């Protein structure tokens, strides 16, 4: 039997198309517990590779023969070794090229919908990390919101669509992943916007993103309008696109809400978070489709792979929007918070331009789930 090499793109298709897959994850138990490849119909077996050095015979009965089996490890080496052992044992051995490192970096662009006058809105789903970026396209121009650091993906996509990137926004200073925003702006000549209240320490030039800031994209003048919505950070800003979509950044997710502690000021910002979720957002139309900057669990993905839901539906179903008692709300979002994202303080420093790690160091910093929410 031969050894097959799968790309992250092939695994992404399995996730998005709700297909079955059996994953033999050979990282150590802590790493698996912390973070794995999530799929609606995926099954898992976690046996660290170092327990398989003497052979895979013992685990063969646990590995199905009637569905695809993929061996996964941190960077590839161990999964290749185990896939070869499976192959020698007469099974089909397949491994994930680049391992969890590459999975963490893979981006899948999915069309969310059409905009007025032939425009389009795309969501870039980073399945391995739960990050969501957006591109608004309209007749020759594009705006990008919350771009992750793989800037080529966005610039190539814009070229493919024959549009010039004119505006680049970050809804806030990110703490879980490294932003590609200012680098895209630098290479394309686009204007880079950042909320000034999040940017007090940044060491590069930017255009202030203020409440009411509006740009128009392309000939059909798709409105991208900013709404100040603090709480995750003090500068956090949302966008309404084409009077139809609400990009909430890290304030409101599908099944959870933003956490107020990643810049160290949970107690100070919990009031802002409450005000944004329970007053400012309530004044908006329930018909808006919420597009967040993250998802935390695979159940937040729709059938087509997008992460999107009507605001009215979230008001009815999202637990974080239904805590009537203010004291209870305060307690939920400031106490018993999940662990903070890996290296979040260093990531903030990178996004402020204060430190410039190598690509490899950036990859290490971004390992693991995003953890920007409280449920």
């Amino acid at each position, binding site marked *: 039997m031969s050894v097959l090499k799968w790309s992250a793109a092939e695994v992404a298709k399995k996730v998005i198309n709700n297909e079955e897959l059996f994953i033999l994850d050979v990282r*150590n138990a*802590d790493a698996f517990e912390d973070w794995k490849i999530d799929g609606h119909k995926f099954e898992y077996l976690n046996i*660290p*590779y*170092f327990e398989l050095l003497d052979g895979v015979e013992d685990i063969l009965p646990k590995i199905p023969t009637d569905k695809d089996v993929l061996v996964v*490890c941190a*960077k590839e*080496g161990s999964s290749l*070794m185990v896939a070869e052992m499976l192959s020698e044992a007469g099974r089909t051995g397949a491994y994930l090229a680049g391992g969890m490192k590459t999975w963490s970096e893979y981006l899948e662009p999915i069309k969310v919908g059409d905009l007025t006058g032939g425009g389009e809105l795309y969501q870039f789903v980073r399945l391995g990390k739960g990050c969501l970026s957006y591109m608004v396209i309209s007749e020759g121009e594009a705006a990008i919101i919350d771009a992750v650091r793989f800037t080529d993906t966005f610039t190539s996509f814009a070229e493919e669509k024959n549009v010039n990137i004119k505006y680049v926004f970050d809804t806030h200073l990110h703490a879980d992943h490294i932003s590609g925003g200012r680098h895209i702006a630098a290479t394309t000549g686009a204007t880079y916007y950042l909320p000034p209240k999040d940017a007090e320490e940044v060491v590069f030039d930017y255009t202030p993103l203020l409440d009411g800031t509006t740009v128009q994209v392309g000939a059909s003048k798709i409105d991208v309008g900013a709404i100040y919505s603090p709480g995750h950070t003090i500068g956090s800003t949302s966008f309404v696109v084409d009077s139809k979509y609400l990009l909430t950044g890290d304030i409101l997710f599908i099944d959870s809400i933003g956490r107020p502690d990643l810049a160290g000021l949970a107690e100070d910002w919990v009031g802002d978070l409450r005000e944004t979720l329970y007053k400012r957002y309530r004044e908006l139309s329930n018909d808006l489709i919420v597009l967040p900057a993250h998802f935390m669990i695979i159940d937040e993905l729709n059938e087509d792979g997008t992460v999107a839901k009507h605001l009215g539906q979230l008001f009815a179903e999202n637990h974080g929007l239904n805590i009537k008692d203010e004291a209870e709300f305060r307690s939920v979002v400031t106490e018993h918070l999940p662990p903070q994202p890996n290296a979040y303080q260093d990531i903030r420093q990178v996004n402020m331009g204060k430190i410039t790690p190598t690509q490899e160091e950036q990859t*290490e910093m971004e390992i693991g789930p995003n953890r920007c929410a409280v449920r």
Partner: protein
Amino acid sequence: MKSTLQLDAKGLSCPMPIVKTKKAIDTLASGEILEVQVTDKGALADIPAWAKAGGHIILDKAEDAGVITFFIQKA
């Protein structure tokens, strides 16, 4: 610390540091100590986890200029 056997696994990436460590440990008698040097960050978590699974004891761990040294006593 005095070790019975020294293993240089610097520059090797996963899974080779563990594969070599296991082979080296297999040549030792119970109670003897293996000193292994690695540079792969993955080994930092994997060597202790591997040792624990086999009952070996990590007597000491030191990091200097990106080189991690483990002293492992065979079970």
